[in-house]
C-alpha cells in the first residue's frame, strides 16, 4: 500500500510538473503584462502538432523537439504582432473576447490542416522502458524524464528572473510598468519577449507530452482551465507560486482520485463510497482553489489584492 502511495505521489508530481510548464508562461504574461490570455492552451496544442509534424518529417525525436522551440517562438511572435500588441491597454474583457475568438480560429485551423483524428508521436527508444520501483510496480522512464525536464526549466526560470538583468526588468515591470518605461527601457520589446517566451514554454510542454498523450484538437482546452487554477492558487505573476501550486494541484488531484474512494470506504458502505468518491474527486482541485483564496485572497504568493 505504501509503495502504491509513493507511486501515485510520483504520478501526481509528474502531472503537476506538466501543469507548471504550461502555467509558467501564462503567469508571466498575466502578472507582468496584466493580460488575460485564453489562447495560451492553444499554444500548448500547437506545440504538440508542430512536434507531430516534425516527427513525420525527420523521424528524429531530439531534432524535432529542438525544432519545436524556434517554431513555437515564431508563432508566439506572429500572434503578438498581429493581435496581442493591440490589446495591452484594453480592458480584461476585451482581451477575453479577442483571445476566446483566437482559440476558436486556431483550433479550427488545426482541424483543417491536420484533421480531427488524434496523432501520435513515437517515443525515443532510449526512454521507452520502465524502471522497477517496488515489487511488481514499475515507473516509465519517459515520465521520470518529464519530471527532470520540468525541474530543470523551473531552475532556469528562477535563475533568469532572480539573477539576470532581464529578470530584474521583468520584476520591475510587474511592480510598476510605467516607471520602468520612464526609466528608458523599451517596455514593448520586453513584453514581446515575455509573450514569445511564454508561447515557447507552452509549446514545449505540448511537445514533450505528445509521446505519452496523443495530440488532438481538444488538448489545449482541457489544460487551459487547470492552468488558470494553478496560477491563481500560486498568486498571479509568481513563478515560484505557480510551481508550488502546480505540484499541489497535481498531487491533490491524483491522490484524491485514487485514494478518496478507499478512504471513504472506511466510513461508509462501499457502493455509496464509490459514488461519493466519483463525485468529490474531480471537485478537489476547485475546492483547493476556493479554500486557498478564502484564506489568502491573492493566492499563496500573491502580492496585492488590488491587482
Amino acid at each position, binding site marked *: 500500500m505504501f*509503495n*502504491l502511495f509513493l*507511486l*501515485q505521489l510520483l*504520478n*501526481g508530481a*509528474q*502531472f503537476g510538473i506538466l501543469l507548471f510548464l504550461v502555467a509558467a508562461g501564462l503567469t508571466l504574461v498575466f502578472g507582468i503584462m496584466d493580460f488575460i490570455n485564453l489562447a495560451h492552451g492553444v499554444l500548448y496544442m500547437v506545440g504538440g502538432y508542430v512536434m507531430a509534424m516534425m516527427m513525420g518529417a525527420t523521424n528524429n525525436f531530439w531534432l524535432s523537439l529542438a525544432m519545436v522551440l524556434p517554431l513555437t517562438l515564431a508563432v508566439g511572435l506572429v500572434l503578438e504582432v498581429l493581435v496581442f500588441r493591440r490589446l495591452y491597454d484594453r480592458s480584461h474583457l476585451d482581451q477575453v473576447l479577442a483571445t476566446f475568438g483566437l482559440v476558436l480560429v486556431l483550433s479550427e485551423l488545426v*482541424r483543417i490542416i491536420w*484533421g*480531427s*483524428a*488524434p*496523432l*501520435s508521436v513515437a*517515443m525515443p527508444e532510449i526512454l*521507452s*522502458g*520502465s524502471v522497477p520501483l517496488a*515489487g*511488481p*510496480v*514499475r*515507473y*516509465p522512464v*519517459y*515520465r521520470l524524464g518529464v519530471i527532470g525536464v520540468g525541474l530543470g526549466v523551473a531552475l532556469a526560470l528562477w535563475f533568469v528572473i532572480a539573477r539576470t538583468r532581464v529578470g530584474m526588468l521583468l520584476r520591475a515591470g510587474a511592480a510598476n510598468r510605467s516607471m520602468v518605461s520612464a526609466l528608458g527601457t523599451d517596455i514593448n520589446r520586453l513584453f514581446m519577449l515575455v509573450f514569445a517566451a511564454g508561447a515557447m514554454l507552452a509549446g514545449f510542454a505540448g511537445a514533450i507530452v505528445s*509521446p*505519452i*498523450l*496523443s495530440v*488532438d*484538437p*481538444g*488538448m489545449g482546452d*482541457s489544460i487551459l482551465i487547470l492552468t488558470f487554477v494553478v496560477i491563481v492558487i500560486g498568486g498571479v505573476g509568481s513563478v515560484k507560486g505557480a510551481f508550488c501550486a502546480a505540484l499541489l494541484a497535481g498531487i491533490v488531484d*491524483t491522490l484524491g*482520485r*485514487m485514494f478518496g474512494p478507499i478512504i471513504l470506504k472506511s466510513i461508509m458502505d462501499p457502493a455509496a463510497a464509490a459514488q461519493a468518491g*466519483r463525485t468529490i474527486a*474531480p471537485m478537489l482541485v476547485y475546492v483547493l482553489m476556493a479554500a486557498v483564496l478564502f484564506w489568502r485572497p491573492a493566492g499563496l504568493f500573491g502580492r496585492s489584492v488590488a491587482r
Partner: protein
Amino acid sequence: MRLLALSTALTLSFVSGALAEDPVKIGVLLTLSGPPAVLGEHARDGVLLAEKALGGKIGGREAEIIVVDDEGKPDIAAQKARELVEGQGVDFVIGPIFSNIMTAIAAPVTQGGAILVSPNAGPSNFAGKDCNADIFVVSYQNDQMPQVLAEHMNKQGIANVYLLAPNYQAGQDSLNGFKAVYKGDVAGELFVPLGQLDFSAELAQIAASQPAAVYAFMPGGMGVNLVKQWGQAGLSSIPLMSAFTVDETTLPAEQDAALDMLTGSNWAPDLDTPGNADFVASFKQDYGRVPSLYAMGGYDSLMLIDSAVKAAGTEDREALRAALKAADFPSLRGEFAFSTNNFPVQDFYLTKAIKDDEGNYRTSVVEKVFTAAADSYVGECPMK
C-alpha cells in the same frame, strides 16, 4: 434603427437556409469534432459510400443527405436533432456514435416524426423498457461486445480481471454486460471521467493488484492513450482485452503498441461475407484508410433505409416500420435480423489487432464466439 431591422431580417433569412423539396431526406448526426471525431468520420464516410454505391438514390428516389456535427455534447445534439427534424424536415436520422447522445436525441427525433437509425450506439434502456417503434439500432446492444470477451475469458479459465471504463452510460453498460457473463472474480473496477487522457494513476492501481487480465472499454482517443501508456507502464505481461479500444479508428495511432490485443466485434475487415471485400476495397480507395465497424455501421444503416423505402415509401408510417423491421438488405455482416425490440440478431467474433501484408494496421477475425445472438433486454421491451 433601420440597420438593426435589416440585420435582423438578414440574420433570419440566413438562419433559414435551404427549403425542402420532395426527395428522401436523411439527417446524419455524428460526433465530428473533439478527440472522438474520427469515429464519427468513419460512420459518415460509411454512409456516403453507401450513397455512392446506390447511385445517389434511396429506394430509387432522389435523396438528400445532411451531415451534422453533435460536437460530442448531448445538449448540442438535442438542439441539432430538432433542427434536422423540425427545421429541415428529414425523414430519417442516422446517428449517434455515443450512447449519452442517444438519450438526448431520441425524443426530439421520434416525437418530431422522423425515424432514428443508430449506426453505433445501443444503450440498454432503448433495448429494454424504453424501446421504441421508431428507433432501429443497426449495430449491437452495448453489453454484447464485452460479453464476447467475458465468454472468451471463461473459456481460457482466467480467474480474476480488473475492469476499466469511462463514467457514462455506455461505460456502465459495458461493465455490467461483462459481469453478467464473466464467471471469475472482479479484482477491481475503475471509472474515469469521459475524455480523460492520462491513465498513469489507474495503471499504477492495476499494476499493484496484478490481475490475471484487464478488460477495458475506452473508445476513440482515450483508447489510443490507454494502449500507448499500457506498454510504457511495464504492464505488457498482463493481457489487455478491450471493446471499442483497439479498432481501425485507433490503430493508426496505436500501431505496434496494440498488436495482438484481443477485442470483441460483430465485424472485421476480413470477415468472409458477400460484398465485404468490395466494401473494404472501395472504402480504402475513396477515403485512404481501412474501414472500422463504425464505417460498417454507417454503410449498413443507409442500406437498411434504402431497402425499406424501396419496399414501402415514406408516406405510410406503419408500412415503413414493418419494412425496416424486415431488414431485407444485404448486411456486410451476412446474416442479420431484428429482434422484437428493433435491436439486431447477429453473430459475434473474437478479433485481434494485426499488421496485414499491405502494412495496414487492422483487426482480424480469430473465431466466432456467439451465433445469432440477441441481447438480454428483449424481454423488458413491451413491443411485440
